[in-house]
């Protein structure tokens, strides 16, 4: 039982990170119709920037620095690449974002090299013991706390502020939103900026989780994809629920199934579960159903 709770806690804290990353994908997709495969590389770049700045500066400054860089990158990519791709087929847009992800990865490698970097977070490696034998890592507690706070803030922004309303209107129907005097181009930029913010948050926590930052982070961030599929591509709450599901599945299978399949089953389990969900519900659990008569 203690082992189960322990794993559940780890799963949820990993899952919250995936949720943040998944939300970055979903917000851009819902707001602008672009599925940004480069988001994983954005997450990785954010973590590297934090590592680089913390070498000489305080932690808070590093977070702000990464945030600024990521938001600027996201908005530049939107303005100068994806703005020109409006109306192109989905395949072309996916390819453009893959091209951008290759470029980001190459630049990150040029600056910081191939080897992993240690990640120093201000929380430290301490644990918190609410029950006898149950040791919860403080990073995990912080991850869950900050993620929940971020999600609540995001929910408040989308549901209770004029800008959030405008974003939702743009997502629902671009022309109708324009007719209401909403500056759709600004909304596109804003969606990407929010994605940049979420990439920074995801990068920081993903770096803190195994306490290192490496080039594989871009691929680890792709674990947010099964989360999105399980939740449904255009559903914000689906992304969060899917993220937590994937995190729990991964940690549980690494805890209980480590004797099977070479001990690496946790890497493929999210994808297997995703395929199963897709067989039953081809649009994810909360995704909107496209009308389809084929």
């Amino acid at each position: 039982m203690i082992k189960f709770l322990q794993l559940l806690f780890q799963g949820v804290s990993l899952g919250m990170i995936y949720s943040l990353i998944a939300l970055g994908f979903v917000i851009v997709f819902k707001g602008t119709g672009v599925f940004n495969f480069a988001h994983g590389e954005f997450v990785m770049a954010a973590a590297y920037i934090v590592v680089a700045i913390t070498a000489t500066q305080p932690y808070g400054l590093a977070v702000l620095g990464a945030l600024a860089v990521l938001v600027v990158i996201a908005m530049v990519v939107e303005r100068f690449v994806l703005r020109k791709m409006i109306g192109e087929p989905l395949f072309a847009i996916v390819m453009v974002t893959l091209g951008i992800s290759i470029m980001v990865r190459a630049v990150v490698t040029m600056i910081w090299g191939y080897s992993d970097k240690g990640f120093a977070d201000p929380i430290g490696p301490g644990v918190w013991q609410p029950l006898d034998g149950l040791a919860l890592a403080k990073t995990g507690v912080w991850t869950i706390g900050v993620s929940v706070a971020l999600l609540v803030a995001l929910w408040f922004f989308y549901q209770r502020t004029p800008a959030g309303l405008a974003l939702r209107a743009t997502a629902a129907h671009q022309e109708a939103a324009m007719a209401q005097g909403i500056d759709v181009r600004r909304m596109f930029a804003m969606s990407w900026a929010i994605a940049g913010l979420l990439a920074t948050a995801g990068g920081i926590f993903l770096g803190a989780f195994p306490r290192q930052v490496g080039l594989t982070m871009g691929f680890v961030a792709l674990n947010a994809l099964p989360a999105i599929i399980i939740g449904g591509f255009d559903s914000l709450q689906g992304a969060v629920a899917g993220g937590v599901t994937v995190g729990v599945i991964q940690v549980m299978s690494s805890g209980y199934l480590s004797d099977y399949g070479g001990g690496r089953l946790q890497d493929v389990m999210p994808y297997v579960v995703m395929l199963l969900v897709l067989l039953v519900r081809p649009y994810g659990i909360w995704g909107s159903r496209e009308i389809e008569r084929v």
Partner: protein
Amino acid sequence: MTATAPSGIFSTSYRHELALRRGRSARLGAVAVAALLIVFPFVAGANWQPIAVFALIAGIGAIGLQLLTGLAGQVSLGHAAFLGTGAYTASWLGGDQGLPVYIWLPAAGLVAAALGGLVGPVATRLRGLYLAVVTLALLFIMSYVFEQWTSVTGGSVGRSTMALTVNGTDLLDGVTLPVLGIELNGNQAYWFFVLAVLVGLGYAARNIQRTRIGRAFLSVRERDLTASVAGVPVTRMKTAAFVVSSFYAGIAGALLAAYQSYVLPTQWGLILSIEFVAMIVIGGLGTVFGAVIGAAFVRAIPELVRSLTGVLPFIEQESDPSGGVTVELVSQFLYGAAIVTVLVFEPAGLYGLWIRFRSFWKTWPWSY
């Protein structure tokens, strides 16, 4: 593309209508290309020869992806998984069982095609992004299999593969052509062998494109609802596209395994898949020739950058664990940039550029 065609396509006979190459200039062009391909390995430097062979092998795989993505419109990020399947099938049959090339080469294609047929029914239920992510899932699951199935794949340390032997000699050791008496080194021998396979499969793909199936693929790409109204069995066509494309990938994987003579499970990953998609995008979507040009371009970038180091001295030759502006990373960056540039400025790719260039000179000076 029709907009840039000079002034319609005129056929005066059925023979002309059915011909692959219409008119004298096209035939002359084909002869010129053939001559270039035959002479190339003899004039190319030693550093270009392996790249040329890799480009040809990649061309076979790219034609396969072109049929699936360019023609039938199904986005796939899982192409590398089929290459890996072909490579390991061939290694097992040719290396462990000791069977000859005329068995392991087709078998590699067929096993990969069978895997494609298994994926088909799942993939055909989905469209667009969902399909892209599902093929990505297939890729991750297959790389897991490649890493864990130690008896066939050698696990994470990799395995040595089979030799491509023709008439008892390993092609890598070089051969002497029987009648002409010309001595070919290993790379040249591979060049001609792979070229023969590529021409055969490319010709087949070109004909698939022109027949009933190819037209059905096109209609599925444009709009599957319309296609089904017009009587195209959409699900069957999508599955067929996956099967055919996987066959090409399997052959390419087997040839790659033979040429490398050692394969690692990590090489059949997301990066290889993206490279293939980049090839068909850069070359030009929907054309067989474009796929081959794109493959050559993507494979040639690193060597092109290397030859630039003389002009741009800040690019370092050797790759370095601490990063830096190295040939490897610059070429990676450039190929990402090439994808973005092509899609933003010339969505028809290199092939589209060629068509534009050609029709400009064909109609010069009255280009309107």
